[in-house]
């Protein structure tokens, strides 16, 4: 087991290195010279050349790449923001709690409501409870979350005046962002849970369990849920990474200074160190989630477990 986890962690590092390489390369070959962008419009060619030298942009590609990867991975140093002159890592650390708060609360809502709605619908297949739940889930899946966010601002902030529309402050500032970030995921999760439950509904072992006279709740909990779990776990993993990565748009709508908004602003202003830093952060975050999903997979499904371990 330890060997498998170690192997999987090494792969994660390789993944991240590759991501760093891709991002650096893409940005390196993107048209536009950062030195020119950040010097004033009156700067002469000589000034720009000096600035390029100071920023280290006149070094060969491989040297710059190596320097970036070395600093990012061994020193957690992503450089300073071109615009704010603040270390990217420090700024991300300041902003991270807001992004994570939204992500975690949204995920908790997602898990509790999504799973229970899915189980509820799945166990009432074909009845009106099922249709009603799925109809509502379908509506929320289909509605873009940033539009819901805008509509909520119109309703709750402008018309009713219950909640603040923008910015950060007390807990009331987080209510709308969390709900908006969670809605789509809840619906996806409910549907995924329902369809996996229905998938195992007709399996022989469920019929066997029923014919033994087991209580329906035990059948659901002990026989159906574990077998329906794999797609649900994948869905949850993807959902969790998507909520945090997708925080950019929610933070944009609600003007919450989190990591996502940091990234979006940097993209608009071509602040390369920030783009690289935030991208690597989101990539690392996603990689950790995916690692957990894979580990849980091998714990949950004995078929996969044996496949991994018999080979060693």
């Amino acid at each position: 087991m330890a060997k498998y986890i170690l192997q999987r962690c090494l792969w994660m590092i390789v993944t991240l290195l590759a991501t760093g390489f891709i991002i650096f390369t893409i940005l390196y070959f993107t048209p536009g010279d950062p030195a020119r962008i950040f010097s004033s419009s009156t700067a002469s060619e000589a000034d720009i050349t000096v600035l390029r030298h100071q920023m280290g942009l006149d070094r060969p590609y491989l040297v710059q790449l190596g320097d970036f990867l070395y600093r990012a991975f061994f020193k957690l140093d992503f450089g300073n923001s071109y615009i704010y002159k603040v270390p990217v890592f420090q700024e991300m650390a300041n902003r991270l709690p807001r992004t994570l708060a939204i992500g975690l609360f949204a995920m908790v809502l997602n898990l509790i409501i999504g799973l229970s709605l899915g189980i509820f619908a799945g166990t009432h297949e074909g009845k009106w409870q099922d249709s009603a739940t799925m109809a509502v889930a379908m509506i929320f899946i289909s509605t873009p979350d940033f539009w819901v966010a805008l509509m909520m601002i119109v309703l709750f902030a402008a018309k009713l005046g219950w909640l603040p529309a923008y910015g950060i402050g007390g807990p009331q500032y987080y209510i709308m962002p969390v709900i908006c970030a969670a809605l789509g995921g809840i619906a996806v999760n409910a549907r995924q849970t329902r369809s996996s439950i229905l998938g195992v509904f007709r399996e022989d072992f469920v019929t066997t369990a029923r014919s033994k006279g087991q209580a329906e709740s035990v059948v659901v909990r002990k026989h159906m849920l574990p077998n329906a779990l794999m797609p649900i776990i994948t869905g949850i993993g993807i959902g969790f990474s998507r909520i945090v990565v997708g925080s950019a748009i929610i933070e944009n709508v609600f003007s919450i200074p989190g990591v996502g908004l940091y990234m979006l602003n940097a993209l608009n202003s071509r602040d390369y160190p920030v783009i690289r830093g935030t991208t690597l952060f989101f990539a690392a975050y996603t990689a950790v989630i995916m690692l957990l999903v894979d580990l849980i997979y091998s714990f949950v499904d004995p078929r996969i477990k044996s496949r991994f371990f018999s080979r060693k």
Partner: protein
Amino acid sequence: MTTTQSVHTEARPIKVAKSSLLLETLQRTLKSPGAKVGTVLFVLIVLACVFAPLIAPYKPNDMDLTHMYSAPSSLHLMGTDGLGRDQFSRLLYGGRYSLALGITASLFGAIVGVIIGSFAGYFGGRTETVIMRLMDILSSIPGLLLCILISAVLGKGFFNTVLALAIAGVAEGARYIRAQILKERSKEYLEAAEAINCSKLSIMFRHLLPNVVQPVLVNVTMGIGMVIGMAAMLSYIGLGVQPPTPEWGALLAAGRSHILNYPYLIAFPGLVIAVTIFAVNLVGDGLRDALDPRLIS
């Protein structure tokens, strides 16, 4: 049941059986009320956008400075924007971009993803490791960012947005289908197919894929809706398709600054996007039920 069985058991009349399977699937799809509603809605939306010049009361870029910011009325069904352009007409014309974007990007991404995922899932071993690690790398870069980076390198525009949105879908498609194949790989019918000396490609795409594609198909059709939403989101944050193209997300972006005074400039484009995605998803659901071999009696 008999016609669908023949696909698996008889080798000769495959061509005939295939087409009838498709027809049968369509018939079954349309049996469910949800799929019927979705199909009708979606066809209506597509027709409305295709025949926009016939339906739209105004040209999408015609300005009428005497009717700026006029609220929805019989003259302007969905109101007008800051330049007096009729929002209903703009939505009709803009749908051409949004729909084309959604359909091409998700189809492209899904097909590539399914092929890659099938190779990984079926062959296993080193092939699987290499492919899935590449997919891991791909999916570890947030799709939104990947899209932005690609557009930055290639330049903004319609085709680049399609490409960027499609690439984001590839990894997910591959992951999903590989997860399904993992569950399916040890079943007897694959062994049987191997025993009668089917080629690997034939086993993968004729025997394995039909049995694993059903759960993935839900994701694919949902993908069409999701890509339409993603595309709208991209133009909303100022990327993707650029104004003055009346793409739906661009309309949302334009209306954003007036959200408190003229909420209908935000409400209608969002509603149209939501209804379109809703219709696509309903069709996807119907398809899923129709393709589920366990539901065919």
